[in-house]
């Protein structure tokens, strides 16, 4: 198994490089200029903007910019953002905790919903519980997140005024009050994302469990006199987990990527909104850094998914 992992890691390096080349050319060719604001201000003479572009190397040919970016990258210097002139890694690290907190919590909520509901719905097929759970799941992931986000704001922030809808990463209070405020302000974004994701996963868990529940070895387990609970848990869920765990592992990169739309609506200063503002301002170093980390995570979690698959299912052998 270990040399399989090593082999996969070795393959990952060229693929990451390949991805970075394509990413960089895409960004370099895409139109747009980080100094949009300078343009409309007549007081700023045009040659200042030209000097600014030159000083940041925007006018060099693509491949020289790529190599300078790559060599800087390898030295651990992720370059600094054109727009905010801050080192990119500082920018990302500042926003990482918020993204992990909100998006991470929503994924946990999604799993906390999907696993129990999915299993119970599958173990009682076509019961009332199953029908209700199924219909709610459908409604859950048919509602676009931005629509539910707006409705929640309208309901809880504006009419009822219970929850703040301005997310503030810099809460000044400490101790319990900090936790209280942190929870109060992240309830809505976490709920919107968690419910949407939970609904999709419930359906997936239900169908995975349904596939397993009819297999012969489940009847064998029952014939062994095991209580229904442990038949379900040890024999049905354990086998159904294999596709579910793989799916969850493949979903992890989005935890880093953040939910662009939800972060825009609830103004969560996460990686998603950083990526959007960077894209709109064509701030190449930031986009490159975020997407490069994202690509690395995608490859890493793909590998992790395969390893978990092998670990969970003994039939899979890695030569």
């Amino acid at each position, binding site marked *: 198994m270990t040399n399989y992992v090593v082999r996969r890691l070795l*393959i990952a390096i060229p*693929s990451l490089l*390949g*991805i970075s080349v*394509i*990413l960089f050319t*895409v*960004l370099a*060719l*895409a*139109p*747009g200029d980080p100094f949009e604001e300078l343009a409309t201000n007549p007081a700023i003479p045009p040659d200042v903007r030209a000097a600014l572009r030159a000083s940041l190397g925007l006018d060099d040919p693509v491949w020289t910019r790529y190599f300078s970016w790559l060599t800087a990258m390898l030295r651990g210097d992720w370059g600094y953002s054109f727009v905010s002139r801050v080192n990119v890694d500082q920018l990302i690290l500042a926003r990482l905790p918020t993204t992990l907190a909100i998006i991470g919590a929503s994924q946990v909520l999604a799993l906390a919903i999907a696993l129990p509901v999915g299993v119970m719905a599958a173990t009682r097929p076509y019961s009332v519980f199953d029908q209700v759970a*199924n*219909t709610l799941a*459908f*409604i859950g*992931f*048919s*509602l*676009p997140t*931005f*629509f539910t986000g*707006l409705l929640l*704001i*309208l309901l809880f922030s*504006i*009419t009822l005024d219970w929850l703040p809808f301005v997310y503030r990463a810099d809460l000044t209070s400490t101790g319990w009050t900090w936790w209280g405020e942190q929870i109060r302000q992240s309830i809505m974004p976490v709920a919107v994302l968690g419910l949407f994701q939970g609904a*999709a996963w419930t*359906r997936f868990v239900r169908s995975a469990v349904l596939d397993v529940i*009819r297999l012969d070895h489940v009847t064998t387990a029952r014939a062994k006199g095991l209580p229904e609970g442990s038949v379900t848990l040890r024999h049905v869920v354990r086998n159904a987990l294999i596709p579910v765990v793989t799916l969850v592992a*493949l979903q992890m*990169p989005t935890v880093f990527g953040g939910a*662009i*739309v939800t972060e825009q609506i609830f103004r969560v200063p996460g990686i998603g909104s950083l*990526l*959007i503002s960077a*894209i*709109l301002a064509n701030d190449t170093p930031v*986009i490159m850094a*975020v*997407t490069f980390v*994202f*690509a690395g995570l*995608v*490859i890493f979690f*793909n590998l992790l998914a395969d390893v978990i698959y092998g670990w969970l299912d003994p039939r899979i052998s890695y030569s």
Partner: protein
Amino acid sequence: MAGSTLASATASPAAARPRVTPGAEAWRRFRKHRLAVVSLVLLSGIVLAVLVGPLVWTLPVDEIDFSAQLQSPSWAHPFGTDDLGQDILARVLHGGRISLAVGVAAMLVAVCVGVLVGAIAGMSRGRVDAALMWLTDLFLSLPELPLLLLIIYLFRDGLGQIVGPEAGVFIMIVAVIGGFRWMPVARLVRAQFFSLREKEFVEAARALGASRPRLVVRHILPNALGPVIVAATIDVAAAIIAESTLSFLGLGFPPDIPTWGRLLFDAKDNLDFAPHWAIFPGLAIFLTVLTINFIGDGLRDALDPRRVL
């Protein structure tokens, strides 16, 4: 040791029952899924409304009438009006055509490319599979928006001359949304192919001399269809939502073309004063997506022979 008795013809039902074609069987099973049937009726209602609607409901789509700003639903304007006094019902009907067309077309692109890549990766071993999976990983990690900026910037003028501005944008939007949705389908199909490829009936078909493409098309693909259909239905929904996100960033259709997504985003700031403006397009998106998902679920039950009802 005496061989086992050859049981006489198994209990085949008496001749009285008509020979059931697979299609009819699938329809019978589909009919059992009540919600799917209801959704089918509802969806065809929506599609009909969107196609015939603009002919029946003749109010012009972009007639600006400042006197009728932000009117709540009334007989003159069943869905109310927006801040330019334009009739929202007409815009929802007209917009529906584009949103649905984008949804379906993007799904088709995603499914076709996904199935193709998945099948090839699934059937071949080693290098081809690894290369295709690398390509999938690459697309998974590409940021959708800058690529979209690039494609629109590169092709809009050229395409615009050939097929006209609106069609040009339509093709581009479908290509981009579709072009970013095929990876999950490809991965799904590949996994299906890996498991189906080992199955006895495939070896049996190969033993009977079936060529590889025939194996794929006639034997493996129909079995892999179930999850692909479910993924396809999810893709239509995701495509409609993606189109509306694009219109939020103004990258989608030109501003004067009302799609559901654009309507919803134009309305989002007036949600607390003129909720009707956002609710109807939002409802249209929701209902369409919900019905498509239910139909997908019904189809999967109908087409999956293993699924006992």
